[in-house]
């Protein structure tokens, strides 16, 4: 057997394969990153500069931040931002409250009908939002809650999946802790607050981040129940900007707005990268 030949051909094949793999990965990375690059690049090009480029340039030598000023002054971007922030915070807080209580009941308490109601909850996970959105729209309209935060928030609160995720996590805490706390005269609520929540903090953080992402990007429901700009969220704001903002296709200003509303989540992602990816891989769907 010609061992040296085998050795070198195996080595060459490995090098060839690796270069193919890296090429593929780099191409995809460029495809993913390019829109981000383009939006940042365009946002720092001047209005005149952008429109004079028949062949778009891949860089600019005269970056300007005027577009960012425009984004906040010509359209109420700051208002959209604030609305989204309020909507996100309140919805997430309410969701946490409802979810933690429900998960605790399912994981820790014994009561009649628990199993049946749990199965019912689980089966709700399969219901697409498109089915229920119609009636919700009618309900909110009847209650005269269009163009209010209440109308925006209420139907967005619950998520069966998060209850399920948290219940699974709560259930892993050994029973002994609960009995020990009971012996010490700890109430159920105190036990939940002092023991279970701290132990399950990682999952709670994951759920929170996922919900924040969902809220920040939500578009369909806000579009249905708001037609007053004062209550627009960023997604609707962007849509509004696209349809009538800035006038005369001021694309650089539009891109500045896009950058501004994209940045918070990207920062959040870079900080909580592992938590987010873990949470999503455990079954998170895009909202």
């Amino acid at each position, binding site marked *: *057997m010609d*061992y040296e030949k*085998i050795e070198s051909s*195996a080595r060459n094949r490995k090098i060839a394969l690796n270069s193919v793999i890296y090429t593929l990965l780099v191409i995809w990375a460029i495809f993913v990153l390019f829109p981000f690059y383009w939006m940042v690049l365009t946002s720092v090009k001047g209005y005149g500069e952008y429109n004079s480029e028949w062949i778009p340039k891949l860089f600019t030598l005269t970056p300007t931040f005027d577009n960012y000023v425009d984004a906040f002054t010509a359209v109420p971007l700051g208002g959209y931002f604030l609305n989204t922030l309020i909507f996100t915070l309140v919805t997430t807080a309410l969701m946490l409250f409802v979810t933690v209580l429900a998960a605790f009941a399912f994981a820790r308490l014994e009561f009649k009908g628990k199993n049946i109601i749990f199965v019912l909850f689980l089966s709700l996970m399969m219901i697409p939002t498109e089915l229920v959105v119609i009636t919700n729209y009618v309900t909110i309209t009847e209650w005269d809650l269009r163009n209010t935060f209440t109308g925006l928030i209420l139907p967005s609160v619950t998520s069966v999946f998060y209850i399920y995720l948290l219940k699974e996590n709560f259930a892993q805490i050994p029973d002994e802790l609960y009995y020990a706390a009971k012996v010490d005269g700890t109430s159920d609520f105190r036990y939940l607050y002092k023991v279970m929540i701290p132990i399950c903090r990682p999952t709670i953080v994951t759920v929170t981040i996922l919900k924040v992402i969902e809220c920040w990007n939500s578009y369909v429901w806000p579009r249905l129940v708001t037609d007053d700009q004062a209550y627009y969220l960023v997604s609707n704001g962007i849509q509004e900007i696209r349809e009538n903002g800035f006038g005369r296709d001021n694309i650089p200003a539009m891109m500045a707005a896009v950058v501004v509303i994209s940045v918070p989540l990207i920062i959040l992602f870079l900080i909580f990268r592992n938590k987010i990816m873990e949470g999503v891989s455990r079954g998170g769907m895009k909202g």
Partner: protein
Amino acid sequence: MVYNYILYIIARERKCGYMKVTLQNLTKVFPAKSKKAKDVIAVNDFDFVIEDGLLIGLLGPSGCGKSTALNLISGLQKPTSGKIFFGDDDVTNLPPENRGVGLVFQNYALYPHLTVLQNITFPLENRKGKDKLTKEVMVEMATEVAKLVQIDTLLDRKPAELSGGQQQRVAIARALVKKPKILLLDEPLSNLDARLRLQTREELRRIQKQTGITTIFVTHDQEEAMSISDMIVVMKEGVLHQIGKPQDVYENPIDLFVAKFLGTPPINVFDGYVKGGQLYIGDESVLDVSSIEDKEVDVAIRPEGFVVDENGRFTCNLNRIEVMGRDISVVASHEKSQNKDIRAIISAENMARLNQATVKFNLKPYKVYIFEKDSGKRIYF
């Protein structure tokens, strides 16, 4: 037609024959993961020859680098330095698939989605070009090797439907079916229960003898290695301590580690010293060792090295007696003993004499080993 094909394959394999394995200064270092941690030397300067057709037990405590040594031989890992020869061929940098080894993994690594038959024929289906086999030949070869390991009635099952012992046989069959020159087994018995382990190790021995294939298996269980190996290689923390026939290694341990590692019940170790050609344990002179100069030493005595004698030179406190049939186990204690209990195995006839708080022994000199205090090296006398 099919029959001719098998003859051809067998003849071709015969020509290659089974291989002797030579390790030359073989070293594997795992670089430290962080700056604070140290490099781990999993295999340190292995240098020995394994003759063909033998069953070799690679023996050592957990985490001593045995599996790494095996992976170096199989080619799954590349050595940091040193060479490996199969026969006269240098295979050090050869990828595993070109080495012609069969490997049985600790947890068997049977493909869960394939049946037993598909698992066994899997290696055969990899052949290309002129070595390509027809389906019938593959099934025939698989059935043949399945018969050898006695699983030929289970060919249609999936691994999940088999017991641990059966899965193990399938794994061996899969390793053997391609007629490897060398068979490697990583902790082959560790996932089996005690009864099955005894049975399977005999089976392993039978299969090895029947095929004559050079076999190297890794284990942390000294009894397992001693009972079936032609040769054992004792290692610890990447360092080779001793290599030899099981009985030789048992009777002539080269250092304290080997003495302690082999034998059940384990060897008894005492703090002792040599003075004026006499070996002392505590105040008593227990043995004449004229050739050793005066110094502190470790004294190791095999359980079968004790002889009960009213005029014995070595006095211990008698704790209890365990009857094991023909033999009895005397459990005693001594202030200089490094273990809590001393165990002596003696013939049951001596039972009557064991009725006091203390027991006196004489020692069989060839069952007593003396070691340097610091290096653990054997001092011969």
